[in-house]
């Protein structure tokens, strides 16, 4: 299932040499990941269409196209984008839940998948909806203990003590183990979800919008929990979110995605203070944000138009129809991700000039 696609960008620019072996600078390696979803119509429909001479329609959704990312050990990479940009799909490929259509994902040099199935426990996922991600009919103690017991990380006799350890690590009482998910609040359920991921002793966490469905005051608690756990356990994280201010606070580096591709990549403050891709700039301008002194949000500038469909991506640059700076070349030729500054890349033919900070 995983074929190594020829690198489309100069490896020297990325600093990436494709090879096996452990390298802390490339702890999580996503190598030319492409993930497409094709809906094949059912057999009956295909037969019917063949009989009547019509062509069977297969819609292909280009969720993720040729994405290469590297996360160093102990680093947190923020992945930002709006719905339909492919960040959740990429997160699932990185967590080993979905196999990639093309390309390969590795952790600490070893491939994530073998024969189409996830082969490692070193990378775990925390999901967005804390209620949906817990089995409503299992006590949370059993949910947390199931994985470690099944993989021999913990003996059955020690499982209960292990569960207590992880519950306390996320700020819950030991007696929570006997309860069911519906007896907890949203924030508490998310702590349980984090405990479940951590119980597998992972080296890396993929967090898919982990605070999106929580109240603001609970968000702060859970974000602080993530930061503390990251420090204590030296976790490597891929933090997916649509909320720019959350990403800014937790990430060392940020990648911006649009319609299945990375359009900008760089150090967090670089991206937020010096966005070079028009989409990043437009996204920052359109998000309401309270000023430091509490003043109400700055005047927001909406982006015109709508996200194009991932079934039929437009030719050239995916953003050109909504871009204030688009020119003829943008419609014809798709820009590749290239370096625009130290540790800062953007996929744009005419990247924005540096703004004076």
């Amino acid at each position, binding site marked *: 299932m995983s074929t190594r696609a020829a690198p489309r960008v100069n490896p020297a620019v990325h600093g990436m040499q494709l090879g096996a072996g452990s390298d802390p600078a490339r702890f999580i390696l996503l190598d030319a990941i492409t993930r497409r979803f094709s809906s094949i119509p059912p057999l009956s429909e295909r037969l019917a269409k063949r009989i009547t001479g019509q062509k069977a329609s297969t819609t292909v959704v280009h969720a993720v196209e040729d994405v290469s990312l590297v996360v160093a050990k102990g680093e947190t990479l923020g992945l930002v984008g709006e719905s339909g940009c492919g960040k959740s799909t990429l997160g699932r490929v990185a967590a080993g839940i979905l196999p990639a259509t093309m390309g390969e994902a590795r952790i600490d040099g070893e491939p994530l998948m073998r024969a189409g199935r996830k082969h490692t426990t070193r990378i775990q996922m925390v999901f967005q909806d804390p209620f949906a991600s817990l089995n409503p009919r299992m006590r949370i103690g059993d949910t947390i203990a199931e994985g470690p017991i099944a993989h021999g990380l913990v003996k059955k006799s020690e499982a209960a003590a292990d569960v207590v350890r992880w519950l306390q690590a996320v700020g819950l009482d030991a007696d929570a183990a006997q309860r069911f998910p519906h007896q907890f609040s949203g924030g508490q359920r998310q702590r349980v979800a984090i405990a479940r991921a951590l119980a597998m002793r992972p080296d890396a966490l993929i967090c898919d919008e982990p605070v999106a469905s929580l109240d603001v005051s609970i968000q702060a608690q859970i974000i602080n929990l993530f930061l503390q756990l990251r420090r204590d356990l030296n976790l490597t994280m891929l933090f997916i979110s649509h909320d720019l*201010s959350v990403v800014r606070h937790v990430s060392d580096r940020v990648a911006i995605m649009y319609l299945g591709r990375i359009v900008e990549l760089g150090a967090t403050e670089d991206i937020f203070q010096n966005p070079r891709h028009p989409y990043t700039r437009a996204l920052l301008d359109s998000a309401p944000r*309270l000023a430091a002194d509490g003043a109400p949000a700055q005047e927001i500038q909406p982006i015109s138009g709508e996200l194009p469909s991932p079934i039929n991506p437009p030719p050239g640059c995916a953003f050109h129809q909504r871009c204030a700076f688009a020119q003829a070349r943008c419609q014809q030729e798709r820009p590749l991700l290239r370096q625009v500054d130290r540790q800062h890349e953007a996929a744009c033919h005419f990247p924005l000039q540096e703004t004076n900070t």
Partner: protein
Amino acid sequence: MSEVLLEVRNLATEFATRSGVARAVDGVSFDVHAGEIIGLVGESGSGKSVTGYSILGLIDPPGRVAAGSVKLDGQELVGMPRSQLRALRGRRIAMVFQDPMSTLNAVLKVSTQMELAMRAHGNPGKQEMRQRSLQALAKVGIPDPERRLDAYPHELSGGMRQRVAIAIAFLNNPGLVICDEPTTALDVSIQAQILIEMRTLVREAGVSLVWISHDLATVSVLASRLLVMYAGRLIEEGPTAEVLRRPHHPYTQGLIDSLPSRAIPGKDLLQIPGSTPSLTALPSGCAFKDRCAHATAACDTAPAQTIAPPRTWRCHHPLNMNAATAVQAAS
């Protein structure tokens, strides 16, 4: 200040639950003036959505409006017979809900749904209805309204659907529109578009807006006044900039401080300890006292509402009080 359009006094709404009676809205009072946009802010369980539903008379058993008065243009809405309320809804007061897919009827075309809304309050002809529908869609920024008019809701994107819902709300030129988290489920860029469109729409139509949300930043773009709710009570009110710069209630301060945009990079976010108490098990006195760093024995009695126009607050130990405000409050 322009005339008062909506007058809410001591509104109380309760729900009968297995574990007791929950007072989702407890003694809430505020005014909405003509042409004004106010923001009703709070987290889940604060009672902000229930306040909106109570105003429109949309509370069904096991809930009921237990006390208080809601006057629209001087007319009392609490206790109004259903038939009269129905005549009002959509005509003089309308609502936009959070999830457009459940607001819009999935099996009816957009045009049909707009016609139904128009025919509920009048008897326009087919041509006139089509004209008005197209105009309404254009006003909310829908490109190519002809095509969208004949579409079904599932053929439209989330942002488009919400715009249709807003268009329907504005169709009969109501004086007041209540919006319950209308952009929460939408992407940032779409939200930005709709916020700007709402502002223009409201200004042109002279409509008043009650914008209910948990997102302080979004609300502050539109609202000229902010109302903050906690555990069913209105704990703070004032001009947006004032409330955000110098909040008087510790909860408001905590809410603002815990926003990631206010974080100091590298340091943990300031967080409010604990969580919202269950409405059936509220502490006596101030509902926030168990989570408040400034709580004292005085907080065991519920604080009364201190009114010092343009601000009000419900706290024994308000923050950010300068000498002027303190004098005003004392008087």
